[in-house]
């Protein structure tokens, strides 16, 4: 419209900031309100609780972020997460090393097969990982005798320390998230893999014509996503000292929601790693506040769905404002 170029620049910058950091603004406001409203919210115990509870989804969503950077999607992570947990708990009777190696090997293999079918076979990520969701859940049912077996981690096993221990007073899962997101940010900004992934999402044909290793990068992305989902499973098996077969249903949707809330476009080609972490924390804080209000569990879904819709609609309007 008829505004001076200078004002357009400022408005566009503000709009871009709000689009990228909208979830952060909502998160901060929500935390401030919650801290004012409940004495129990801003306690170190509750905040630690939120962070630990969020850590599993955070690890899964990190892998999803890179998949979505390439313009793909990974619907299998919820099942792979559950499978990783069950395999870790099962293998923990043979030692901590086995409890780490078995789930990561199996989950990595699932990611590799998915990645190869997508990148080399040219099939839609949506449908391949949808099949992966079924496949991993089927494997899990095989391992657990149709979900009837819950494997327990032996008492005194060092494996329990992985998610139950703490360093410098900070619980291990929080450290794991901090380290993984630091690595993720470095990979995105300091290695050639990061720009390659974004270029694939931006325009795959162009990325290929530029000679970027498109197929390899795509395969790697799905392997990483499955490995991270499996790692989250290992973490939760260690945290709960057992392999629960029924977890992870709908987790892929939570992970996608977190990535979208973090300002990453599902079309790929743009986004941030830390935004995803903000999205995960926002979902977890909502859950925590609903608990504090002692409302029915169902409100959690209603509020999360509403905020997700509100944020993406706002993002669209802000993106339009930016273009003007």
């Amino acid at each position, binding site marked *: 419209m008829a505004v001076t170029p200078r004002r357009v620049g400022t408005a566009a910058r503000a709009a871009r900031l709000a689009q990228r950091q909208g979830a952060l603004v909502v998160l901060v406001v929500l935390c401030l309100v919650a801290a004012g409203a409940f004495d129990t919210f801003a306690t170190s115990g509750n905040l630690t609780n939120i962070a630990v509870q969020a850590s599993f989804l955070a690890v899964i969503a990190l892998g999803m972020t890179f998949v979505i950077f390439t313009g793909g*999607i990974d*619907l299998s992570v919820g099942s792979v997460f559950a499978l990783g947990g069950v395999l870790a708990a099962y293998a923990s009777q043979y030692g901590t090393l086995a409890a780490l190696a078995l789930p990561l090997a199996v989950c990595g293999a699932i990611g590799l097969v998915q990645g190869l*079918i997508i*990148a*080399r*076979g*040219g*099939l*839609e990520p*949506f*449908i*391949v990982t*949808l*099949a*992966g*969701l*079924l*496949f991993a*859940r*089927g*494997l*899990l*049912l*095989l391992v657990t005798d*149709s979900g009837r077996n819950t494997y327990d981690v032996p008492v005194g096993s060092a494996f329990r320390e992985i998610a139950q221990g703490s360093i410098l007073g900070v619980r291990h899962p929080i450290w794991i998230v901090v380290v993984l997101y630091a690595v993720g940010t470095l990979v995105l900004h300091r290695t050639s893999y990061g720009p390659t992934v974004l270029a694939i999402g931006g325009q795959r044909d162009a990325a290929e014509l530029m000679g970027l290793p*498109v*197929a390899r990068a795509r395969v790697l992305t799905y392997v990483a996503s499955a490995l991270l989902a499996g790692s989250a499973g290992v973490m939760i098996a260690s945290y709960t000292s057992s392999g629960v077969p029924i977890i992870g*249903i709908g987790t892929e*949707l939570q992970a*996608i*929601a977190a990535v*979208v809330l973090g300002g990453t476009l*599902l*079309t790929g080609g743009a986004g941030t790693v830390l935004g995803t972490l903000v999205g995960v924390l926002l979902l977890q804080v909502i859950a925590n506040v609903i608990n504090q209000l002692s409302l*029915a*569990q*169902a*409100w*959690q*879904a*209603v*509020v*999360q*769905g*509403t905020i*997700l*819709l509100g944020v*993406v*609609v706002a993002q*669209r*309007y802000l993106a339009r404002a930016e273009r003007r």
Partner: protein
Amino acid sequence: MAELSTPTPSASAPAAAPAEPGPEPRPRRRLDGEWLRRYGVYVALGLLVAINLVITPNFLTVSNLRLQLVQVSPVLIVALGMAMVIGTGGIDLSVGAVIALSATLIPLYIGYGPLVAILVALAVGVATGALAGTVVARVGVQPIVATLALLVGLRGVANLAGDRIRPIRDPFLRGLGTGTLLGVPYVVVAAVVATVVVWFVLGRTTTGRQLVAVGGNLRAAALAGLPVKRVLTSVYVASGLLAAVAGVLLAARLQAVNSASLGQLAELSAITAVVVGGTPLTGGQVRVLGTVAGALLLQLLSSTLIAQGQSDAVTQLVQAVIVVAAVYVQFGSRRTR
């Protein structure tokens, strides 16, 4: 056949197509490629039926066939709506939650009479579809995100509304769920009617042509002056309505509604049926009969495996492999990278 597609050069004519005028030369028949892509799902379905005729005792009995059809009907009804949405290049993840919400409302409104309850349930489907369609078409949010938000939120609303499992004792609804018309269950009749209506709308009306045009190339459709936003909105309304129909039928058949579990993962079954039926996720093409065959194939596959004494685990593993194989046969060879 109910195959509709926009003439995209990559799909219809390979690079070798001659540009000379005159009668078009007959394209060479390639049994492995185009033929398999087009009829693969029917062949697979036929094969599975044949296998069942041999190995499953009592397969060809009225009661078994009726059971199969009754079970597949809600999935098929949802898949038809999904096929239209996918035809526009979109996706509707909210259908499972819409099923749950519409079914949950039935016991709550049954006091006003069964027709009122059904109308409320269907109206909710239309309303949620209109919301999804508006957010997708007018605001421009990606379909997968918009309907994902609805999936999460509407399931929450359904759980709030139906805080416990509620039985349905209304005789009219029970009749709807268990009654038959000339030996055919009403549920199956509804699925057949829905199939015919969707087939007619897509194949014989302007709206159907516009729908595949929008899916084939949205910009071109907009530049050609098609009412893109109205078409996009209406497919989500149709999908929401069909999901609500499935919800009503499920509530009537099960005679009880559990808002937490009803319609769980129905979106994935519907998408699978559509894609296995030969409709590409990229849009611009809808295969209605393929979707019917896809839904039947998946239903028969799982019931066959269960009849053979296989566990859920094996059933899911086989389904996963079949889905990838089916999609690979139909779409994998188009892009060889």
